């Protein structure tokens, strides 16, 4: 186990720059999720840590060693690939034993470690099978087994759950998290799925266009997103955003061009008249007579909650209620955001306005 330090790392393919100076420090034993939309550079960064891509500039340390120029096998990392990358001509046992065999470990030690990993992952019955004879979830487990057997400094996961169906994905998510709690190996996990990031991570790194947008604990990112990108990316259904201006004449309010007004609990100094974006999470609306007029468009009950798409001025917003209101499309309702839980962002820079 080891800490990982990424210092001002950059990557260019020819003249195309894909990562523009990324700094991340990962503590020993931490579970860090790199999350972002496709093409944000998260997989490239992971592959640079693994040694599958060269580092154009900057420095990556694993433990005390700078690994920039070390070949992958000397970095002591194990990687789980999106397509599992199991060796199709080897049995499950041989797949897991391969790295130790290459290292020339004694057969007794190989057997012991493979068996231990198989017990942890529930693969004992499958050791003599070939990858083609396994289901998707089982293959995923073998890929993890291959990583566990190595007992590496760092586990790297590259979108390991994307090829699984929705139900299995939720199950494997829990399994991976349990595995980490048990082994406590430093883990870097890449995904584009913010739910995976939220549920699994000790620390989330949100990436966008080759830059880090925000680093923090899942709930910190949810409660205090640094900028519009993070606000929109984390959370499902996504945060509602309304464009307008802050008005501090009299009681502090936020005014949309359509005349819709939201009262504010206060606003940062000097923000009067500034173009801003007002953000409110769907679950922070309540029905109240002093709320804002809205017209129900679509009602989506999920059983545990009720999602209501409503028209608020010109903006379509989503509100989520735990109660089972009997709304119909076209109903007029009054929605009141909780003023303590709203977010204000500068419209031009996208940065959070402290409030």
């Amino acid at each position, binding site marked *: 186990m080891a800490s990982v330090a990424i210092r001002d790392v950059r990557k260019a393919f020819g003249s195309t720059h894909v990562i523009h100076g990324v700094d991340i420090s990962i503590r020993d034993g931490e579970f860090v999720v790199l999350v972002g939309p496709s093409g944000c550079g998260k997989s490239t960064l992971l592959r640079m840590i693994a040694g599958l891509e060269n580092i154009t500039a900057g420095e990556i340390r694993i433990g005390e060693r700078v690994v920039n120029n070390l070949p992958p096998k000397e970095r002591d990392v194990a990687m789980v690939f999106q397509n599992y990358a199991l060796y199709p001509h*080897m049995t499950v046992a041989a797949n897991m034993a391969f*790295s130790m065999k290459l290292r020339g470990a004694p057969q007794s030690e190989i057997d012991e470690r493979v068996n231990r990993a198989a017990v942890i992952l529930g693969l004992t019955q499958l050791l003599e099978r*070939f990858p083609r*004879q396994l289901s998707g979830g089982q293959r995923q487990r073998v890929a993890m087994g*291959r990583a566990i057997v190595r007992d590496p400094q760092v586990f790297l996961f590259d979108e390991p759950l994307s090829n699984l169906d929705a139900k299995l994905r939720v199950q494997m998510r829990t399994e991976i998290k349990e595995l980490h709690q048990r082994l406590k190996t430093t883990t870097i996990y890449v995904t584009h799925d913010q739910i995976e990031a939220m549920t699994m991570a000790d620390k989330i790194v949100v990436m966008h266009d080759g830059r880090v947008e925000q680093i923090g604990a899942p709930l910190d990112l949810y409660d205090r997103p640094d900028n519009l990108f993070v606000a929109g990316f984390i959370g499902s259904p996504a945060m509602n955003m309304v464009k307008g201006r802050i008005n501090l004449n009299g009681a502090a309010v936020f005014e949309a061009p359509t005349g819709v007004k939201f009262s504010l609990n206060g606003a940062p100094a000097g923000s009067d008249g500034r173009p801003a974006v007002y953000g409110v999470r769907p679950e922070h609306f309540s029905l109240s007579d002093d709320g804002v007029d809205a017209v129900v468009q679509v009602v989506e009950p999920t059983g545990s909650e009720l999602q209501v798409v409503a028209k608020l001025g010109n903006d379509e917003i989503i509100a989520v209620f735990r109660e089972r209101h009997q709304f119909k499309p076209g109903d007029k309702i009054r929605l009141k955001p909780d003023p303590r839980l709203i977010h204000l962002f500068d419209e031009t820079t996208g940065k959070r306005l402290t409030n």
Partner: protein
Amino acid sequence: MAEIAYARVGPKQALGAPTAWNRLKANHNWLGAWFMLPAAAFLILFLAYPLGLGVWLSLTDTKIGRSGVFIGTENYEWLWDDSVFWLSVFNTLLYTIVASAIKFAVGLYLALLLNENLPFKAILRALVLIPFIVPTVLSAIAFWWIYDSQFSIVSWTLRHLGLIAANIDFLGDTWNARWSVIFANIWRGVPFVAITLLAGLQTVSPSLYEAATIDGASAWQRFRYITYPLLTPIIAVVMTFSVLFTFTDFQLIWVLTRGGPVNATHLMATLSYQRAIIAGQLGEGAAISTAMIPFLLAAILISWFGLQRRKWQQGESND
């Protein structure tokens, strides 16, 4: 479903039970047989029938211009004591084994090379195919000039470099002639092996190499433990074809040496042609051709059982 529908019609049988013929028309297994019938007819007419005829011919004493009578295995007994026949068997085995082994080695090397990120990759791949595209007779004629006792460019070059004093007699000396035709066959056969293996290499997922790299495999170990085992099915197929083509080769030899000097390069195919068509001994020629069948069957069986052993390919995929 069908039974339920008929049951409801009940005792009247008004709609009529399907006739045996109608059932046959709709049955999936039979439908498959119907679709195969045209292909099977062609194969029987143009492959199985001539083969059978050839085997029958080998049991007769037919000559050109005279239909023969059944003489049992007399042709084979005759061949058993014929040293030229045994020489041709030796030549064919030498030709096939040496040429196939080198074609495999060179072809695999080229395939691995072409699978790398080389500059002008597409052009290089096209160039490799040239020997395969040129009609065999044309390339054989080119080799005939290259091996010419007086005008050989190889002799000329070596002489001008001062490496040899006199021209090499490529096709006049027994062993020279054998190696020369083997070289020509290799030159012609390598592209087929290389391009087919290249296609096989490209089906190997790059992430397997990445996984192996992280697992600590060196370049040689990646080849030994990943590339080679994953390539074995295609190697088995391509080498079976290569062996079959080489074993039955005729054109190259016929243009270059006609089996000479003193039968040193006679293959079974050329000897068969010479005995049957040139000398007119159709029965004896057919017997030589028929004698090739066990060798070819052996080659096919070896690769067949080689393929059968690979259990990892046959697991069901259920993801």
